[in-house]
């Protein structure tokens, strides 16, 4: 299962400035060599938070990723984030 690799990308993006800079410059290149499924890779490159959630990423890591993408937390960010997940149900997130 590649969910671990998906979660790790979210985790590193929020915590590792060098990885974040590389991802921001060229996400596909930054993910080269990562053991991700095609759907996971595409969702990450597109920063498609709804798709990443549906693929079973840990919600807390996805939220950290969204906060980092936005450059910091704000009420607006929180509302935008929830709007992207509207209608989705919690699923399995075990790695």
């Amino acid at each position: 299962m590649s969910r671990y690799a998906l979660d790790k990308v979210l985790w590193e993006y929020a915590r590792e400035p060098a990885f974040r800079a590389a991802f921001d410059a060229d996400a596909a290149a930054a993910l080269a060599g990562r053991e991700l499924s095609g759907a996971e890779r595409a969702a990450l490159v597109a920063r498609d938070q709804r798709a990443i959630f549906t693929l079973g990423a840990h919600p807390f890591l996805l939220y950290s990723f969204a906060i980092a993408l936005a450059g910091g937390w704000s009420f607006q960010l929180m509302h935008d984030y929830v709007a992207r997940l509207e209608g989705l149900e919690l699923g399995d997130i075990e790695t």
Partner: protein
Amino acid sequence: MGKLVSLIGVPHDPTLPIAARLAAEGKANPGALPALANFETLRKRLAEARPDVIVMAGSDHLNQWFFNNMAPFMVGKAARMQGPFPSETKSWGLEPCDLPVDGALARHILKSGYEQGVDFAFSDEFTADHSFTIPLQFLRPEGDLPVVPVFVNLLAPPVPPGRRYAAVGAAIRAAIESEPGGKRVAMVVTGHMSNSVGGPGMLRSMSEPESDWDRAMWRRIRANDVAAVLEHSTWDQLYAAGNGTPGFLAYCLAFGAAGGAAPSHAELVATTAQPACAFLGWDEARLDGGRA
């Protein structure tokens, strides 16, 4: 021998320190005031207990412990407990925390756990995130006591069932009571009631601060029906009530440490200002009664 003289369960919502700053200027969201008042009540109860050291159990929120090596229960035994993480300070303006760790008690809890059948992990290098620093700063603003941090996995499944958290809480208490220095020990746990931070239900607490799950679990708590609390505290049951609701497992540690005693302070705060939160406290007399 050591003694458990105070047992406290509180939230660690990072908006509460912000609310406390605003409250000082009369500008806080009124919905945050009951939580602040509960912290103040429990601060006084903790002071009255005259503890020598605080055992503090909280989560790491995947800040440093990750799926590459995830321990359900870990004792921190570095020389000092420092935190929170810079990203947390940036987001919420949290105060820094830097407290000595009671290494002797930490090692005693660790080894006593092994003897009792609780195989704690341990760490000599860690950072304490907001779930440690916020409760400690509310409950002991003097920052004058050493601590023993216990990291518990509350959000990275699979996690053990609630009854195991209770067993670990009981083992920590037994370790405290076999501590040879006669220390007066307080134990603070921090977790959640229903919580959906990072999930699609994250804003629900703003329109429905008290969920059906909160009401049902709070009834069990008020009845001190620990068996029923634990029976309803598996990952699947808690996760179904919100992706962050497994944070309730921290309270199971407290029920285990209480040994059946009913809390002397119990208040559910459910307002639109922050997710529902539980404030529980057991004073020394209650804890004595729980062992009778």
